[in-house]
């Protein structure tokens, strides 16, 4: 019989942020109930114990025994990590789950950490729906309108924008509103409508674009120090894995549920104009992404993981192109 385990878990997103942070709070509430007190989790808000970008190192070296983040935060250490949280024109939630759980996704995910010498066990522990494509002060009608635009944009999507002549920067969350308000930047992306409204972008940038081609779904991970994981009983491990899997469906449901309310408010009360990117713009984003991909695939692990995902997606198309009624209807 293993001893009861307490997971000290620093998190990368405040637990008050809907869909970004609420799922892990739900997990920490469920674990002791599901396990009858055998597994507990203490959540540390971002930066309270360790900064979001330092979570992987802290868990791997055993300074804390677990952590909650997105793999994209480790892209500076392992470029392939970006794929496991989100990539431009990547899979949406059900497709992502299919690849992770029944394709090679989770195996490759764990293998990436093992090969890189990190002493961690990984669980996918939340999954959220698409982001918006960003908030713009002026409407964007053509690729030319993007040239010379100053925009806050994160990660590989930012590389795509850069290829199209956008001057991107990576302002921290707290600086975005001020910079946008004063015009130091002309546009920003951040997250989903329900989350973006908390940062108040609608007050100063009235043009909200969809779809979020750069981030169709985002996976959040629970990292557990491998020594801690190995010491846990089969039952304790099953409690963690199963609760994380339940959290994945819980978070998809939550993030799907909370958006329309914010969007209605944006349009009806806040004077926001919602736009949909026209075909030619989407084609341009896609084209630029393919160029970015060529650079990224110079990293062997990135190439291997991406090719596996792509192979899966080609097969999945056989099903998805026939099975669903198109969304716009």
């Amino acid at each position, binding site marked *: 019989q293993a001893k009861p385990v307490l997971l*000290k878990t620093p998190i990368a997103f*405040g637990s*008050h*942020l809907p869909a970004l942070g609420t799922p892990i709070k739900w997990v920490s509430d469920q674990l002791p109930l599901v396990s009858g007190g055998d597994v507990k989790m203490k959540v*540390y*808000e971002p*930066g*309270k*114990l*360790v*900064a979001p970008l*330092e979570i992987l*190192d*802290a868990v791997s*070296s*055993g*300074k*804390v025994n677990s952590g909650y983040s997105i793999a994209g935060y480790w892209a500076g250490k392992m470029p392939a990590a970006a794929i496991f949280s989100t990539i431009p024109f990547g899979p949406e939630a059900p497709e992502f789950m299919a690849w992770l759980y029944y394709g090679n996704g989770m195996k490759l995910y764990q293998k990436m950490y093992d090969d890189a010498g990190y002493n961690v066990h990984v669980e996918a522990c939340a999954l959220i729906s698409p982001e918006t494509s960003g908030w713009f002060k002026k409407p964007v009608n053509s690729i030319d309108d993007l040239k010379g635009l100053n925009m806050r944009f994160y990660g590989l999507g930012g590389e795509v924008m850069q290829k199209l002549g956008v001057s991107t920067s990576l*302002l*921290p*969350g*707290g*600086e975005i*509103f*001020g*910079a946008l*308000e*004063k*015009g*130091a930047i002309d546009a920003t992306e951040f997250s989903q409508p329900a989350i973006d*409204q*908390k*940062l*108040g972008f609608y*007050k*100063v940038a009235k043009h909200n674009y969809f779809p979020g081609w750069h981030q169709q779904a985002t996976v959040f991970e629970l990292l557990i120090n491998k020594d801690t994981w190995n010491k846990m009983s089969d039952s304790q491990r099953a409690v963690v894995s199963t609760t994380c899997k339940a959290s994945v469906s819980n978070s998809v449901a939550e993030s799907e549920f909370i958006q329309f309310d914010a969007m209605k408010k944006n349009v009806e*009360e*806040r*004077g926001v104009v919602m736009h949909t990117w026209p075909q030619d713009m989407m084609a341009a984003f896609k084209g630029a992404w393919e160029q970015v991909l060529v650079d990224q695939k110079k990293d062997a692990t990135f190439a291997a993981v991406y090719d596996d995902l792509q192979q899966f997606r080609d097969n999945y198309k056989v099903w998805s192109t026939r099975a669903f009624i198109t969304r716009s209807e």
Partner: protein
Amino acid sequence: MEINEILILSMFASFILLLFTGFPVAWVLGGVGTVFAGIAYLCDIHLDTIIGIDFNSIGIVVSRIYKIMDNWILVALPMFIFMGNMLDKSGAAENLMKSFQELFGRVKGGLAITVVLIGIILAASTGIIGASVVLLAVMSLPSMLDQGYDKKVAVGTVASAGTLGILIPPSIMLVIMADQLALSVGDLFMGAVFPGLVLGALYIVYILGWGVLKPTSMPLAENIQPVTLGLWIRVLKSVLPTLLMIVAVLGSIFTGMATPTEASAVGALAAVLLAWYNGKLSFPVFKDCLHNTFNVSGYIFAIFIGATMFALVLRELGGDEYIESFLTGLPFGPYGIILFILGIIFLLGFVLDWIEITLIILPLVAPVINALELSINGYGVLDNPELVWFVMLVAVTLQTSFLTPPVGFALFYLKGVCPPGVTLGTIYKGVIPFIVLQLLGLTLLLLFPALVNWFPAMVYSP
């Protein structure tokens, strides 16, 4: 009492006691954290506790230091310190003070009022207590003392006017608070405008009153000249260059040329150009400014580093939960709980800087505040009017605690740049009246939440 709780309380107690040995504040913070980590480790071995601190887990402090290093917002701090130093060397500050002094020459306390006004102007450009206090002190202390001001009045005015900077936007404190509580930075910036002006007005009224009651503490300059057209022109000529520099900073923010952080470097460059224009720029002067900036930002960041170790160990000991369970168990009504929380923040302001308090306390108390179901008017525009109002109360409370002996950060910064004759004791006595004014301002905000919430609601109404 649990062993954890004993450790938490004795950690605070040893910190306060050791401060008075005169060993540097930064190293007392860091050292007490380290020593108590060791004590907690021994407790786990010998006393059957499960705190879980060991030499490995305490290593998190390194990633916390790295987090201070890659903080893009704090880049502004050395830049504003440099601007202050250069402004001092450029002779522009002297000119400014002198001409304002002539203009306000007939008013008792005119010079002190000048300092408050300049403090409010500077506040809008820095947002960092250390930087504003230092800047204001080097600009105005010498002329106030030369004119025979009571040292206590002089330092009190500088310390309080300088701390306004953490409140009046753009304030990096408000940026971080907004980030912690998922509030809009814009709401907080606009919400801080009136509280800042109210405090500034209280200072001025007090100085005018005191000038009448006790004229010897604020003597007039010896050779007062009548206010003529010639004087106005001279005033204008001396004000113009400095005004241009302030316009460069604020203007680059408001026109969207630069973010508040970048505006700090624009200000630094403008100060260099100003010194050059006044013929005061030379290689030795420039080097001296660099060395001074290096020194001042060095000792400020030592405190950041010491405090991060202290906070880390406090958290590992369960200091957070201790405070939270204490708060939720209080038997007072809503306003009683708010006052109590403000009281705690006030006390913590003695030992921790606002970053630590913002990171530790605010997220803890925010749910408590929301649960109080106060009916604070958000005019249908603010997303979370209760929290916006409460944050402003906290901001003013923190500003007050930085002014409060024995441990007020503003007082330490001020001590760093005071002429040798001014002791910490003088500074302590000087700030007392201003602390009373702060409390008065705080009471006004408590009674009239509209002072906070009306302005952002108006600015952002669709």
